[in-house]
């Protein structure tokens, strides 16, 4: 296997041949990724086995699992809005959020099963009850939550069995926040540095992100007269998401670096701008002196809604890819562990 290339400037990347020094290529790694971007932390010197990762990286497909995280958050937040709308008599808001929650959780369950190596055995998830496995707890949670959202949506659409519908709506709202936040534990309960180290703040990031996504859904599809709570949820959710994420990046040391590089960085910058912009636009749409008729009056709210929905998705994909990157580079495993050992030694 040769790594050399013939370029206009001569041969590049050629092996040293007879002049090779023992171990010159082993143990150290000087590969630099990205163009022109300066690392947050200066390059730490560390040993590794030919730059090979210590960990095996997650085998999860990004679209399935990051999509699942996103849709779970969207559904959880939407269930809260649905219960509030149901209780305060906002039928349009209730209809959209109930349907949204049921649809999102159905698609996310499909993504979860699709990601399994043996999809036909998905029911094995419910073979045991195991609190040490967030995925097992999540399966039980979804097994309870998904039928509730579907019952709530079905009762709303059919306009019958109102009592059952109200009960299901309330129960789904009780489970919704857990559905939106347990996915943070799912990621954190791994050896992946950028996921594990953020275990204190990540649930709050996901809670805020779920709220802003659900608010986005409502803003995009519900008339302004009934979307007041969604506007407020957009602002509160965005503040929680962005604040908790900043806090997390400040607390986790070197494990924050993958969030600031390459594709995760682009996704997370986009998420920040879309979420902050969407929340600002939502606040503006609310301040716009009451509901105006026609497309012109709805435009800011629809734009805000779409921005919030996209921003939340970008956040989940960014967090997912940053974690995979931190598992692929031995630096993020070795350097913090060495520091920890040094600190313990005194």
């Amino acid at each position, binding site marked *: 296997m040769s790594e050399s290339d013939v370029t206009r400037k001569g041969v590049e990347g050629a092996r040293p041949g007879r002049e090779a020094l023992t171990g010159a290529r082993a*143990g150290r790694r000087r590969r630099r990724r990205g163009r022109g971007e300066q690392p947050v932390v200066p390059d730490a010197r560390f040993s590794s086995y030919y730059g090979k990762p210590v960990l095996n*990286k997650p085998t999860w497909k990004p679209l399935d699992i990051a999509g699942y995280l996103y849709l779970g958050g969207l559904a959880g937040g939407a269930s809260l809005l649905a219960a509030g709308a149901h209780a305060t008599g906002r039928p349009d808001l209730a209809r959209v959020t109930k349907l949204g929650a049921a649809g999102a959780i159905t698609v996310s369950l499909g993504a979860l099963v699709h990601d399994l*190596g*043996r999809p036909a055995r998905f029911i*094995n998830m419910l073979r045991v009850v195991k609190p040490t496995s967030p995925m097992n707890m999540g399966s039980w949670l979804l097994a309870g939550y998904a039928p509730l959202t579907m019952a709530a949506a079905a009762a709303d659409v059919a306009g019958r069995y109102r009592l059952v519908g109200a009960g299901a709506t309330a129960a789904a709202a009780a489970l919704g926040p857990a559905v939106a936040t347990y996915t943070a534990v799912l990621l954190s309960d791994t050896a992946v540095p950028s996921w594990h180290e953020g*275990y*204190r703040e990540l649930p709050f990031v996901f809670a805020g992100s779920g709220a802003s996504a659900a608010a986005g859904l409502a803003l995009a599809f519900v008339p302004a007269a009934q979307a007041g709570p969604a506007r407020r*949820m957009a602002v509160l959710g965005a503040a929680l998401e962005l604040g908790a994420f900043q806090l997390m990046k400040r607390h986790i040391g070197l494990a924050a670096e993958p969030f600031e590089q390459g594709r995760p960085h682009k996704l997370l910058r986009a998420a920040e701008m879309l979420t902050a912009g969407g929340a600002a636009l939502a606040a503006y749409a609310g301040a716009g002196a009451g509901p105006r008729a026609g497309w012109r009056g709805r435009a800011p709210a629809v734009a805000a809604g779409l921005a919030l929905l996209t921003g939340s998705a970008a956040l989940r994909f960014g967090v997912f890819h940053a974690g995979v990157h931190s598992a692929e580079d031995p630096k993020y495993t*070795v350097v913090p562990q060495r520091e920890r050992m040094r600190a*313990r030694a005194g």
Partner: protein
Amino acid sequence: MTEGKTTAVNAAGGDPPPSRKLFSGPQPNVAQAAGYPDAPPRMGFFTDTSVCIGCKACEVACKEWNSVPEDGLELTGMSYDNTQGLGADTWRHVAFIEQRKPLGGQEPGVDHSGFDVFEAARNLGSSPASPGPGATAPSPESAPAGAPAGSISPVSPDGRTELRWLMSSDVCKHCTHAACLDVCPTGALFRTEFGTVVVQEDVCNGCGYCVPACPYGVIDQRKEDGRVWKCTLCYDRLGVGMEPACAKSCPTDSIQFGPLEELRERAAARVAQLHAAGVTDARLYGESPDDGVGGDGAFFLLLDEPEVYGLPPDPVVTTRDLPAMWKHAAMAAASLAALGFASFVRRPR
């Protein structure tokens, strides 16, 4: 990460009852805690890399016995190691590291041209300088003068640079607190009566959660099959009193199999012997029950830092922090519920 929680968990209340499963810290009776009242002694591996010759017999024997499929025929170009690392189809992996360092009492630059090997063979065992068959290391007294430090130079008198090869056969560590087992949502991964960790392939649904949970990067998913696979410590052989295939095939006894307690004693003696012989680099890895995974069922004697071999220097089982994770998630869920409520509360006019 910086809060040093390891000690906090360990310090909580002296000797734990052996029957309770703990999240981290020492756990003397791991099989009993997993529900085997009359468990046999915990079995494991002690891999003494100082005598590994890199023959890869362990890799071959493992594949043969366990019918592990081919794991890619490629030449890496980085060393003799074309296996690269542990995975679904690689349960033993021999690492090769080349270093410009002398090994223990090695004396570079000695002229051997006048040395008669047949004469030396005839005198085998007749003097302390020529130990008989069965002696694999010099006794502490016969260590070369000045071996620990000083007189050994990495450059021989004729200007050649010195070289040592580190070879080490890596394997699943069969942790006392195994993250893969903890996070498995189906119960496919289980603790055997020998204290080892094994995947039940008829239960595994290929969710892949154990893969990023393992702090050593051992277990992985077999793409064409969907399920995850790893070393079973030859559970089928153990059951009938046989040693695992890799240990059986190891020609230098670098891979030693036995009751963990016995292996730990043997390892401590071996380190002391190597230190006395001037190999000050020798150290045990994964042997201490006080480490982040509660000690490994398969531990190692290394001649350099663990990360040089591709091992994490201070691995911690991720589920040690799981109670705190659930707590934070519960607080976040409560915040989200409060946020939802606040969105509907009418501002007072």
